[in-house]
């Protein structure tokens, strides 16, 4: 009987992100924006592991705007929650006010906690992906590879300018790791259990 060998693949982008597959991100001009010095260091450290030397690390949206106005950037990783101008506003500005190629630069947003009031903004600001924490190296790399290969056209609809949101189920597949979605699923499951228990009690 032969020994079955299956190469480990990472959930999310299947064949494209085998542990043995090779990626080259060394030349990516990358910008990270986070008002938290620790958050900024952490993201830059993770990216350095992927071979990305972060060219611009900014503590505020204002600092990022100055650079984005005239320096070509290949990848942006931005925190959602920032004082004065938050991540959503920055991405909206980038999409609406900056000329190509930066207007179409892949943007990954990171959020420790997604405010319910910001969910629509997250959808409508024009980001390619919002990563809710827990933050892991795997999640971040999956999303980077995914946005690099994201071929959705950009749409201009009313106030919106960004990747086509009508395309369904094109995001990374695999185990759900978005904290908000997990909490929502747990909440729905709990409600269903409570309703079932109540119904069973009534029947008795």
């Amino acid at each position, binding site marked *: 009987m032969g020994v079955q060998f299956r190469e480990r693949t990472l959930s999310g982008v299947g064949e494209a992100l085998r542990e043995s597959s090779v990626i*080259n991100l060394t030349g990516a001009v990358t910008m990270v924006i986070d008002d938290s010095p*620790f958050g900024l260091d952490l993201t830059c450290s993770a990216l350095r592991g992927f071979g990305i030397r972060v060219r611009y690390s900014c503590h505020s949206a204002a600092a990022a705007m100055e650079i984005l106005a005239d320096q070509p950037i290949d990848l942006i990783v931005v925190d959602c929650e920032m004082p004065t101008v938050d991540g959503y506003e920055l991405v909206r500005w980038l999409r609406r006010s900056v000329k190509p190629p930066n207007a179409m630069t892949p943007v990954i947003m990171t959020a420790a906690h997604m405010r319910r009031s910001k969910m629509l903004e997250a959808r409508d600001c024009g980001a390619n992906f919002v990563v809710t924490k827990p933050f*892991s190296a795997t999640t971040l790399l999956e999303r980077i590879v995914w946005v690099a290969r994201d071929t959705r056209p950009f749409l201009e609809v009313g106030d919106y300018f960004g990747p086509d949101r009508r395309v369904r189920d094109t995001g990374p597949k695999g185990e759900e790791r978005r904290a908000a979605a997990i909490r929502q699923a747990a909440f729905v499951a709990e409600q269903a259990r409570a309703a079932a228990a109540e119904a069973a009690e009534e029947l008795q």
Partner: protein
Amino acid sequence: MSVITHARGKSRLAAMIDSAGGVSVGVALAQARENIEAMRAQAMAVVDAQIVLLEAVPKPASIEEQPGRIGEAYRAANGVIDAASPFELLDLCRAAAGLCDILDNAPSDRPFDWRIVTVHARALKLLQTLPLEQADSRAAVLDSLREVVERKSIPKPPVPDR
């Protein structure tokens, strides 16, 4: 409403990711994890500092003061998740996320029960001091917080007229 479609060429990022050179995904992840792990002590200091900040947010003296205080508490709880999540301190993250949920849904027209913030700050402090091996004790802390979250965030059905 009219829709204008802008076709995109291959981005520089897309072109370079498959170009010659680079590292394997396995190596990239191992390096990234090593880099993140090197920041563990710093992260724990940040978590401690955020809990201290959370504890220090005073109870709002008036409804007008409430949004500002809630914002301060939200940012501190958010900071806990930021620093703890890369190190898989999931119970700390759950506790902080529970508080963020409550604060995000806090009423603006009536006083917010500030004991919720105090209880969460104490629970976070306790989770930081309890050894990871004491899984039962850590779970008990989370269970008691979950009760608080459920009581405060699930809208109660109206009492039917009799």
